[in-house]
C-alpha cells in the first residue's frame, strides 16, 4: 500500500472535514480559473489578434476614443472627416514614404466608415461602409461568414449575429435608423433592407448594423449644405477653387432638386439611378480603416498622416495594448491577487484541519511507527494528506471553474455577444499546480513535523 493510498484512507476517515477543506481550495481555484478565462476572453476581444486593422484614421482628439469607437463600437466619433482624406491624403501620404511609387505598394486596403446613427429597434450602432469591409479579414486569419448577399445596393444592410438574434431579423427584414443616437428621437424616413446576416465572430461586429455607405449618404440630413461643406473643407486646410465651389453648389442643387428631404425612399430603387450626384466634397466619413502590407509600413504611415493633415492615425494594437496594460492588466492582477488570497485562506484551512486532527491521531501515528513505519514515513503520509487536499481541491476547482464558464457561456453570448470558449486553458492554469504543491508542502509541514516527533511509547500508553 503506497503512502498516498494510506494518506487518502486517512482523509476518508475524516470525510466531512476533508471534503470541506478540499472544497474551500476548490472554490478558490474555481474563482481563479474564472478570472483567467474571463481575462482570456477580454484579451482575445481587445488585443491585436482580434483586430485586422493596421491604422484607424479619425478626427483629432483621443486616440483611444477613436479606436474604441471605430473598432469596438463603444462611444460615438467626436466629428467627421472630409472625404478628401480618403481619396487624396492617404494615398499622398503613402506615396511620400521613401521608396514608395504608388500607395498600393504599402496599403493593402482602405475602408471608410460612417457612424453616429443607431437602429430604431434595439439601438444597435449603425456603420455605413463599403461591401469590401466584409471581404477582408476582420481579425488575423479570420474572415466573415454570412447568410444572404453583400449590401451592394445603397439601401441594403448587413447585420451582425447578435442583432439578428435579438431583433429577430433575417434577410429581407426592413428597419429604420435613429439619427445621432438613441437619445435624439429623430427617426429617419429611409428604410433599409437586410441583404445578409453575418455569422458570429465574437467581436463588436456581432452587435453592429452595417449599411451601404452610399445609402448612408443618401439619408436626408446626412449631406451637408454646400456653404457649410465648403467652409469645413477650408477649416481642414484644403484648397477649394472657385471651379470646385461651383461644382459643389451645382451638384448639391441637383441633389436637392431630386427632393431627398421629405420623401419616402423605401418605395423606389436608389441603385437604379446611381450616381445620385452627391459629390465627394459633400461626403464625410467618421473613420477610415487602413490595412498596410507590413507592420513597418503602418508605423511609417501613421506619423506621415498625423503631420500632414487634421486627421489622426493610430495603430489600434498600440492603443489597446496600452489600455490592457494600464487598466485591464491591473484589474486582472487585482482579481488574481484576491483569488490567490482566497486560495491562501483555504490553505490555512487545510493547515488548521490537519493540525487540529494531529492530537487525536497521535495514537494512530504511534501504531504505524510500532508496525515499523519510519519517522520520515509518517511525515510523508501527513504531507501526502495535505497534498491530496490541495491538488484534489485544485483539480475539482479547475473543473468547477471551467464548468461554471460552460454554464455561463451561452448566457454571456446571448447577453453580451461575446463568444467564450470554456475549454480554452490559460498558461497560468499550469502554474496553479506547482503553486498548490508548494502550498501543500508548506501547510503540511508543521503537522507532518508533529507526526515525525510523536513518541511511540508515550502515545501507545496514552
Amino acid at each position: 500500500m503506497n503512502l498516498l493510498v494510506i494518506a487518502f484512507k486517512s482523509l476518508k476517515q475524516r470525510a466531512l472535514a476533508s471534503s470541506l477543506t478540499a472544497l474551500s481550495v476548490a472554490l478558490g481555484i474555481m474563482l481563479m480559473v474564472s478570472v483567467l478565462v474571463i481575462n482570456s476572453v477580454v484579451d482575445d476581444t481587445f488585443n491585436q489578434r482580434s483586430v485586422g486593422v493596421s491604422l484607424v484614421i479619425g478626427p483629432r482628439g483621443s486616440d483611444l476614443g477613436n479606436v474604441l469607437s471605430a473598432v469596438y463600437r463603444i462611444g460615438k466619433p467626436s466629428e467627421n472627416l472630409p472625404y478628401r482624406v480618403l481619396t487624396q491624403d492617404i494615398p499622398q501620404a503613402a506615396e511620400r514614404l521613401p521608396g514608395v511609387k504608388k500607395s498600393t505598394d504599402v496599403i493593402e486596403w482602405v475602408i471608410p466608415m460612417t457612424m453616429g446613427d443607431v437602429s430604431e429597434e434595439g439601438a444597435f450602432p449603425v456603420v455605413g461602409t463599403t461591401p469590401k469591409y466584409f471581404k477582408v479579414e476582420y481579425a488575423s486569419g479570420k474572415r466573415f461568414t454570412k447568410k444572404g448577399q453583400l449590401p451592394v445596393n445603397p439601401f441594403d444592410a448587413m447585420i451582425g449575429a447578435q442583432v439578428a438574434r435579438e431583433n429577430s431579423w433575417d434577410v429581407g427584414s426592413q428597419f429604420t435608423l435613429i439619427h445621432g443616437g438613441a437619445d435624439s428621437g429623430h427617426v429617419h424616413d429611409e428604410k433599409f433592407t437586410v441583404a445578409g446576416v453575418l455569422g458570429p465572430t465574437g467581436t463588436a461586429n456581432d452587435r453592429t448594423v452595417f449599411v451601404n455607405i452610399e445609402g448612408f449618404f443618401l439619408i436626408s440630413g446626412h449631406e451637408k449644405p454646400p456653404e457649410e461643406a465648403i467652409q469645413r473643407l477650408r477649416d481642414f486646410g484644403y484648397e477649394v477653387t472657385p471651379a470646385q465651389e461651383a461644382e459643389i453648389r451645382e451638384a448639391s442643387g441637383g441633389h436637392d432638386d431630386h427632393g431627398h428631404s421629405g420623401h419616402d425612399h423605401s418605395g423606389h430603387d436608389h441603385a437604379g439611378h446611381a450616381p445620385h450626384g452627391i459629390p465627394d466634397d459633400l461626403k464625410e466619413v467618421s473613420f477610415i480603416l487602413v490595412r498596410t502590407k507590413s507592420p513597418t509600413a503602418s508605423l511609417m504611415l501613421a506619423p506621415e498622416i498625423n503631420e500632414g493633415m487634421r486627421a489622426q492615425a493610430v495603430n489600434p494594437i498600440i492603443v489597446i495594448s496600452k489600455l490592457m496594460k494600464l487598466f485591464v492588466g491591473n484589474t486582472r492582477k487585482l482579481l488574481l491577487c484576491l483569488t490567490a488570497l482566497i486560495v491562501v485562506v483555504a490553505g490555512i484551512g487545510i493547515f488548521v484541519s490537519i493540525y487540529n486532527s494531529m492530537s487525536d491521531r497521535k495514537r494512530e501515528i504511534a501504531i504505524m511507527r510500532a508496525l515499523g513505519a519510519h519517522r520520515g514515513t509518517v511525515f510523508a503520509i501527513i504531507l501526502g494528506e495535505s497534498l491530496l487536499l490541495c491538488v484534489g481541491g485544485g483539480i475539482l476547482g479547475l473543473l468547477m471553474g471551467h464548468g461554471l464558464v460552460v454554464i455561463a457561456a451561452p448566457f454571456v453570448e446571448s447577453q453580451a455577444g461575446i463568444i467564450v470558449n470554456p475549454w480554452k486553458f490559460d498558461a497560468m492554469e499550469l502554474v496553479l499546480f506547482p503553486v498548490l504543491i508548494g502550498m501543500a508542502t508548506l501547510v503540511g509541514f508543521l503537522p507532518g513535523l508533529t507526526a515525525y516527533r510523536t513518541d511511540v511509547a508515550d502515545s501507545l500508553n496514552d
Partner: protein
Amino acid sequence: MSLSIRNLTKSYVEPGGRRLPILNVDSFDIADAEQVVLVGSSGGGKTTLLNVIAGVTTSDSGQVVIDGTDVTTLSEPARDRFRALKIGYVFQTFNLLPAFTALENVLLGMSFSGRKVDRSHALELLERVGLNHRLHHRPTKLSVGEQQRVAVARALANRPSLLLADEPTANVDTANQDNLLKLIREACTENSVSLMLVTHSQDVASQFDRVEKLSDFNMPEAAE
C-alpha cells in the same frame, strides 16, 4: 536463541529531575519457538520491557539480542525496519487503524517492512484466524474478538521470529479469551515464532509451560 537480554537497564526521568529506574535485568532468554508468559504487578515495567525489546523505546544500557542482532546498537531507522521484519506486536487495545479494513490493516504491517506486499499471505492469515468473511470490514464494524484476531494476523504478517503480546486477552470475554489464546499459540507453533506474552491473568498464565514473574529477574531498585 530467539531473544537474549543481558544487563538491561531503563529508567525514566521524573518531573523533578530524579531518575526512576524501571528495568534492571541481568539475564533473560527465550529459545527459538519457545512460548513464555510474563506476569507481574501493574506498573512493574512489563510494557516497558516489551517496548525496549521491540525497539520502540531505547534502553539506558545493556543488550537485547534478537536473532543475532543487538537491537540496542541499531539506529532508529534500522530499529524501525528490524521491528517491522522480525517482531510482531499485539497490543492490549488491539490498536487497529480505524481508517482501514481488516485486510488493509494486515497489509499495512507489510507495507512498512519495505518488502513486497504479499496479499495472498495476508488473506491466508485472515482465513487462519477465521475472518475470511470479514476482510473488507473496518474495525468499527468488527466485534472485540474479531478485532483482536485481526491484530494477531497483522502481527504475523511479516513472518516475525518473535511475537510480543501485551495483555492480548485483557479486553475480551472468557470464551473469546481462550479462543484467542489458542489462536496465538497455534499460529506461533505453526510458524515457529517465539512468543512472549504479558498477562496479569492466572488463567492465561496457567496454560503455558514457562511462566516468568518479572519481579524474579527485574531488580530496578538495585540499579539505584
